[in-house]
């Protein structure tokens, strides 16, 4: 069973991620009164990127980007294999580190700027992810995803604060406004394209695929809040993931990018209020 779900994740995550990305573009376009691209546009984009000439600014960028992809795939596989959630989150951070290194290896002003901001983003979201893992441990008595999804009740019933906090920081991981500090969708903004400034063609395609893996991993973590031993919790979890994703899109469209200080302060305060309090209550009633 774990093998099946890992293989399923590895094969399907880019497809699901691509479709979600397409959904994002369509919904965003409708919110802005536009038609939006066709549903398969992300796949056309990736195909085109792969067909482009391999240009690079240095010899290690591709290697670091590929490492980023593989580590994200490993992190996701651990989640879908039902392994330890804390380890999964640690690997997620390690993966992100490779992206930051890929961006700084260029020694280019805009990608270095993006890398710096990405590091701040990591610092902003990491406390919540660790506390969330602790929250799952307090709620279910185990760090293991396999045990967490076998509980009689959904975890969200006792850890709504963590879900709220996680939705807050998911905006960082999905690179959504107001927290899309390290990169942008449009190259005319103040940091050009941030960490992806020097990535082109196949390198950029790999980065995009990695983001799809990450997106599915993040939504998998959202699903973890809802899944319990009953079969009907699975469709509920999928609906919940879609709702969270649509909320993120809405938030993306109605807010402007904030400064790093606001990002850090708000994430840390939300982590402390939502996650910290929720965890404290869980610990006291244990």
């Amino acid at each position: 069973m774990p093998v099946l779900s890992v293989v399923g994740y590895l094969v399907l995550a880019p497809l699901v991620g691509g479709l979600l990305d397409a959904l994002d573009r369509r919904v965003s376009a409708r919110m802005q009164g536009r038609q939006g691209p066709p549903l398969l546009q992300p796949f056309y984009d990736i195909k085109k990127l792969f067909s482009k000439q391999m240009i690079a600014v240095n010899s290690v960028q591709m290697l670091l980007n590929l490492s980023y992809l593989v580590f994200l795939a490993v992190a996701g596989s651990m989640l879908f294999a039902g392994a330890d959630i804390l380890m999964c989150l640690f690997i997620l951070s390690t993966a992100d580190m490779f992206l930051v290194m890929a961006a700084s290896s260029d020694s280019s002003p805009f990608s270095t700027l993006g890398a710096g901001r990405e590091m701040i983003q990591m610092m902003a979201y990491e406390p919540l992810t660790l506390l969330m893992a602790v929250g799952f441990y307090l709620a279910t008595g185990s760090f293991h995803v396999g045990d967490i999804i076998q509980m009689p009740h959904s975890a969200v019933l006792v850890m709504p604060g963590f879900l709220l906090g996680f939705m807050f920081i998911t905006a960082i991981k999905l690179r959504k406004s107001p927290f899309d500090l390290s990169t942008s969708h449009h190259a005319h903004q103040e940091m050009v394209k941030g960490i992806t400034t020097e990535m082109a063609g196949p390198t950029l395609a790999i980065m995009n695929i990695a983001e799809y893996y990450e997106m599915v991993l993040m939504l998998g973590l959202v699903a973890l809040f809802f899944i319990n031993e009953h079969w009907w919790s699975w469709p509920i979890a999928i609906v919940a993931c879609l709702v969270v994703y649509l909320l993120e899109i809405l938030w993306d469209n109605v807010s402007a990018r904030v400064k790093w200080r606001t990002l850090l302060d708000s994430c840390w305060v939300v982590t402390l209020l939502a996650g910290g309090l929720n965890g404290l209550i869980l610990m006291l009633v244990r």
Partner: protein
Amino acid sequence: MAIIPILIGWPALMALVIPLLRNPRVRGRVVYVGAAVVMVLAAFLLGAWLQGGGGIVSLCGSVPVIDHLMLAGEFALMVLIVYLSIKYKKYPVVLLSVGQTGLITWSELTCPVESPTHIQLDCLSMLMILIVALVGGLICIYAVGYMQAYHQHHKDYQDRSGFFFSMLFFFLAAMLGLVLSENLVWMYFFWEITSVISFLLIGYTRTEEAVNNSFRALWMNLLGGFGFAIAIVVAAHTLHTVQLGELVAAKATIPVVLLAMAGLTKSAQLPFSSWLLGAMVAPTPSSALLHSATMVKAGVYLLIRLAPAMAGNMTGMTVAFIGGFTFIAASMMAIAQNDGKKVLAFSTVSNLGLIVACAGIGAEETIWAAVLLMIFHSVSKSMLFQAVGSIENSLGSRDIEDMHGLLLRLPRLTYIMGIGIAGMYLAPFGMLISKWVALKAFVDADNYLLVIFLAYGSATTMLYWTKWLCKLVSLHHTKVKVTDVTRKDQYLSMYIHAAATLGLCLLFPLVSSRVVTPIIEELYGTAHEVLSMSVLTTMAIMLISVIFVPSLMFLLTRSAHRHYVPIYMGGVNEGDNTYFTNSFGDPEHLYLSNWYLRFEFGRRRLMRPGVIISAGVIIVMLCMIIGGAV
């Protein structure tokens, strides 16, 4: 077990011989031999101990001669401190020194306590001996090459290398004696020696800053020593024993809390962190020694010994709070530092905080984590200090900003730095695994405050290491030529450290079951496996992915044909990725700086509140604990 006096005596003998040698070449050779013999002796002791079946070996019953010699030694140290304090007009230090020596003497004369064993060898002290002998010995070897380059760079300082090496060996002897002592009076003697030697090492250059910093280190450590002395007096008068093991078994509140305070000063926890940060003025080998193998490890060693007596009481809570608070505060302040050695210093303080917090909780799992953190920290930190020292000698600067693109300029040193940094915080190196276990244990101990400290502290730790690593791997071509002046003996030491870091990571399950579990068994009587098999499998997956993924990707992408293009610089790239055309049409040099967030995380902003909070907590809790116990 006759090897034990030789093990302690040999470095002390070397310390006496080395200053007599004037010729640097001969002295270098003698240092090599001396350090090698220390390591071999430690290995022999390990062999003899294992052959005897391991376990606890108690030695050295009543030896009045040594007791008297130690008392004489303490008086000699006191006279030295008094002389130097008066010479440099630091009078309050005199009171501390005279006070504690007087207390100990008074106690020994009025209330002599029969001691069944003075020296005890068990798993924990054996581990400490290995760390001190191997890491410390390698640092001595490294120092031979380093000090030559150091004095070529710093012509303004008087060359007192002989004295320097002598102090390094003395330090090793004192440390070995300290971890072997079971009798608190003996331990106190060695404790005082380490305080005084660190003071002499920090003041090596005799500049005004060095003198001030060395006296700060001295008074803080003497304050801890004062607590130590009071603990001995109280234990001797109320419990009629000065055996550490008996105090811990009896859970004697007042001596334990005072000894714990001594441990906190030595391991540079807030509010006593500033002495370790000031110790950076000394030549790098002494920093490496103070930070990794000796001195600060003496503090955490004592706290780990005391851990069973701190589990679940107020003393433990206080110690755990101070440790957790120091962990997060120091890791925040590390973000704002651009001096490589300062970052390492803050990270030492921060990591020690985590170890101290683990010791304060005093559960089996936390001690497991504490011991592992200690092992990994000594090796990685010693290597990082040596690498930064070598970079400084080659580059003429230890500013992280100057290390931009170091991978192209000093590749070998950069790889060593990279391994050290990865060892300090990345999955799946030991530090991270220990952190993971600590997190679980903090939850199990119902200490939510520590969980929060750990969650936030991990994030800030991540930032300061990542940005340093990124600075190193920037492929930035400069025209400034750098020659690597690092000598072979320095590389030898660093290579062994790098191999040890990687080896410890690969042999992690073995280290856990063969080294750490027996220590827990001896401290607590029982031990269960902290890491389950499934976690070890997960770790194996992580290890394989971390080592093999980048290498595999390297092989995959090496052959890929690429068309290299210049980077985008906003202004027109002049073609070399280093200069761009500015708005006046002139070429302008590209300069990329790291983020330091000085206004948010600067030492000036955080140090004072940190010291006030921690000092307040310590004073209030000390009053409550002692008041409650009397």
